[in-house]
């Protein structure tokens, strides 16, 4: 498994007044789904462009499938399929024509390209719309056509830039399932960038959190939450009827439990963090005491929490996104001096 198919070493990209990617080193193994997670403007797309040799890094190296992406982009592009975040097709051509055009560009003959295109359109579920002009396609259909477009070159790696953006929830579910299926069936390596946390959480084997050009954390989701919260992370939420306030006595009782570390009251909810799984114990206790328990929820740290926690650590959100320009400039200033 220790065979990185994408290898980034000290990759940096500086624009005139901005550092888009800052000294990024990352390994992605063959056959895994890696999620690159970060807010808008974090440098995800820039990193991807450098992986494909579409943008030249200021320093550092990117190796994909054993080829240097900067020096030998054609070899990389033969093996990597890229689905950009807003992709366009030739609107006056049909889906099939669009697809077989890309197939021919990848060295397939006309017949092969067409056969392959029809096969892929079937896989992504667009067979019935094959002869429809792409100008009439919805966003979700375009995204699926885009996936077919990426697959027609039989890639080893597929890079998806914000693939779930602008698709409706059921579409997202299908799309992610399709990616997962392809990953399992064809041993494809998938690099997925997104700012949608739970989409990434659903399918990624490993996740990298990318903020302001830096990779802040890297690993699978349980280990990330461990790394981050430095706790064993068992949280139980007990919900009580909203018309009755939670008594101080109950709070104290909960704190008295052997494994409980912290008890927080949110209105009619009681959030208890504990060292081990005590949910059953708590419920039994509360019911015995005659409280009206209406809901119990066991909470594991999802990406949302991880994400927010990172922002908290990251100097109080001062780089949250590129739109708050004033704030951004300040950050930049600080960096230059530092």
């Amino acid at each position, binding site marked *: 498994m220790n065979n990185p198919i994408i290898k980034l070493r000290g990759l940096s990209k500086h624009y005139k007044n901005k550092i888009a990617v800052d000294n990024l080193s990352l390994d992605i193994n063959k056959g895994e789904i890696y999620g690159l997670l970060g807010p808008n403007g974090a440098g995800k*797309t820039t990193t991807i*462009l450098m992986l*494909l040799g*579409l*943008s*030249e890094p200021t320093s550092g190296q990117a190796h994909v499938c054993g080829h240097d992406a900067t020096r030998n982009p*054609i*070899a990389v*592009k*033969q093996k*990597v*399929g*890229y689905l*950009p*975040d*807003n*992709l*366009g*097709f*030739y*609107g*006056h051509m049909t889906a099939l024509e669009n697809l077989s*055009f*890309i197939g*021919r*560009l*990848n*060295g*397939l*003959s*006309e*017949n*092969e390209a067409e056969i392959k295109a029809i096969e892929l359109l079937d896989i992504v579920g667009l067979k019935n719309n094959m002869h429809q002009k792409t100008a009439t396609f919805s966003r979700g259909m375009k995204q699926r056509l*885009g996936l077919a*477009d990426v697959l027609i*070159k039989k890639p080893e790696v597929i890079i998806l830039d914000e693939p779930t953006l602008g698709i409706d929830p059921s579409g997202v579910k299908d799309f992610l399932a399709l990616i997962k299926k392809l990953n399992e069936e064809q041993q494809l390596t998938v690099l997925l960038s997104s700012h949608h946390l739970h989409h990434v959480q659903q399918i990624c084997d490993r996740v990298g959190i990318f903020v302001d050009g830096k990779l802040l954390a890297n690993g699978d989701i349980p280990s990330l939450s461990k790394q981050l919260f430095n706790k064993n992370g068992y949280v139980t939420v007990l919900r009580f009827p909203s018309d009755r306030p939670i008594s101080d006595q109950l709070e104290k009782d909960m704190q008295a439990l052997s494994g409980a570390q912290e008890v927080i009251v949110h209105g009619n909810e009681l959030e208890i963090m504990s060292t081990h799984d005590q949910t059953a114990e708590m419920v039994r206790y509360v019911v015995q005491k005659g409280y009206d328990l209406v809901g119990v929820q066991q909470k594991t740290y999802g990406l949302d929490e991880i994400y927010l926690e990172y922002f908290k650590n990251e100097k109080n959100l001062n780089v949250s996104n590129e739109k708050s320009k004033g704030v951004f400039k300040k950050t930049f200033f600080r960096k230059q001096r530092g």
Partner: protein
Amino acid sequence: MKNLKESLKRRFSESNGGNEVRSPLRVLLRKEVAEHIRSWRFIILLTLIVLTFIASMYSSLSNIKSAFVATDNSSTSFFYLKLLTLTDESIPAFHIFLSFLAPILGISLGFDAVNSENNNGSLIRLMAQPLYRDNLILAKFLAPLLIVAVLFFSLSFLIVGYAMYISGIPIEWQEVVRILAFNGMTVLYVGFWLSIAVLLSIRFRQPATSALTAIGIWLFFTVFFQVVINIAIKAFIPDPNYLSADKIAYYNEVILNILRISPNQLYVDASTTLLMPMVRSLGPVSMEQMAGAIPSSISLRNSLMLVWPQLSGLIAFTLLLFAVSYALFMRREIRS
């Protein structure tokens, strides 16, 4: 022999079955050509050119008889060349028309070559495919040129064929070469404007901006350039009344050379020389030089020699612009 037959057969069946693998450039070219031909823009341009052509041919066909009676003094009549250039002054000859239609053709086929692809997101999709960037820009440049070449060659061959059919006059090889050269020149001239348009389409992100800029450049060269030169001449050149004949000739030459910065001028000079064998010089000619000359047409070789500077000027301009757009595009970071 058998082997040859076999391989030919295989080759034939392969190309029949569509099984051959094409180079990316050819795939791109094919797509570009198909796209242009199916577009409304091209249909409008085609109509414009064809209508102009028909109008000028109509005027020349209806006047060609009188032209022959008046000036039939050389051994070769150049019927077909006259057909292409003759006019009754009501509308300009076809090659003069072309000197301002060709830029429109070039501009409109190229002004959104790169930026529209960039804007609708298909450029990045193309760039993620294993092809060199120059293939794309070459396809953007060569596809319209191919279409234009087919258009002009077929138009002129059609009219020559038609005239041959109705008149029965045999065509001379010299005329064939001259007409071919004229068409080549026209394609080159369109190529020049096309390279301006492609360059602007790389430079500007909005197709409207690049179209406007290209039209601005075209207007400048067709209308304002001569005005500006005339004003400048009045300001800088001394009063001709106090100059010797030598000096006047010298200044005339200078003015003409400045005017030749304008590509239209180059094209008009070159096409006139190619289509009218009677034209023997593009600059002023003194009485002494004319003294011993026989009023006959000059040979094809001499005509070609005469237009060579114009031709190389246009080629140089085109290549220069193409090189600039190439450099710009290669260094461009493409993002959607």
